[in-house]
């Protein structure tokens, strides 16, 4: 377990300042990469740190403290992004693939074409659009996706965090990826023209 995390759990006031000084600048850049507005990014950062302070007792050291904070601040920024667009949390089941009664895809599946976005600017824009799609995911999909893709947790670690079984956590992650795939396809993100 991180020594700083231990001090935070013990309520050491200096540890909180050290935490914010150590990670604040980097995490502000994370929030800004999602929100593109310094004032909104600062608010998300503040909300993220408050959420982290409240839940530090649950930090188990399975990922690095910085990675854990990254996920929390990123989630705060994504929720703010969605709130700005006034999109309510939907069920998300409509984002899963549809099949006929014969179990065949209801619609022919498009080939997404070749990969590879070499240009740095285009790559930045692509990532921004992917984050917008993640922001649209309902929480039941967004959280497992971030536990895996940001914190890199195993199925068992995700299960402990989500209060479920490893198998159920794997299924939620799989559905989250399917839902994100649908949103990316709808916006033609990463899809060759």
């Amino acid at each position, binding site marked *: 377990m991180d020594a700083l995390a231990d001090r935070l759990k013990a309520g050491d006031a200096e540890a909180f300042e050290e935490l914010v000084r150590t990670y604040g600048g980097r995490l502000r850049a994370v929030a800004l990469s999602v929100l593109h507005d310094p004032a909104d990014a600062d608010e998300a950062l503040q909300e993220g740190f408050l959420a982290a302070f409240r839940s530090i007792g649950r930090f188990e050291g399975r990922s690095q403290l910085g990675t854990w904070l990254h996920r929390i601040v990123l989630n705060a920024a994504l929720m703010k992004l969605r709130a700005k667009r006034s999109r309510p949390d939907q069920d998300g089941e409509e984002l899963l693939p549809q099949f006929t009664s014969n*179990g065949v895809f209801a619609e022919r599946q498009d080939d997404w074409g070749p990969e590879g976005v070499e240009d740095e600017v285009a790559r930045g824009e692509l990532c921004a659009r992917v*984050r917008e799609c993640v922001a649209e995911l309902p929480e039941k999909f967004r959280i497992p996706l971030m536990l895996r893709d940001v914190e890199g947790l195993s199925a068992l670690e995700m299960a402990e965090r989500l209060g479920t079984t490893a198998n159920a956590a794997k299924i939620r992650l799989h559905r989250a*990826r399917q839902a994100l795939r649908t949103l990316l396809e709808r916006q033609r993100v990463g899809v060759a023209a």
Partner: protein
Amino acid sequence: MTCKQCEVDVHEYLRGTLSAAARAEVERHAAECSACGDLLRRCQELTCKDFVEFLNDYLDGDLDGQRHSVFDQHLSDCPDCRAYVASYRRTMELSVTALRGELAVPEEIPERLLQAIHDSRKQR
């Protein structure tokens, strides 16, 4: 009907988009041609829905050897599932890249923001 045409039409046959005449043509060809008959049977035994439901296990290598081979065969048979797997893999890569990201050189947090975070923490 040629086998090549039948390979294409089998998926539309199962999707239910073919006319009655075209359906009859697929059924007639599948009855006469053992390769196409096998293809139709395989697509009915392991459906796209089954394939997609266990796609994560397939990609993670969590299926047992025999089941994995059946999934390999379905992927070889089914253009829809091949396209879906490619886009699913791309989604996984894009998600990690966009969320984990390559961050800029860390900046120092402005003092006013540091103070605001401390103040808000004390208020709660």
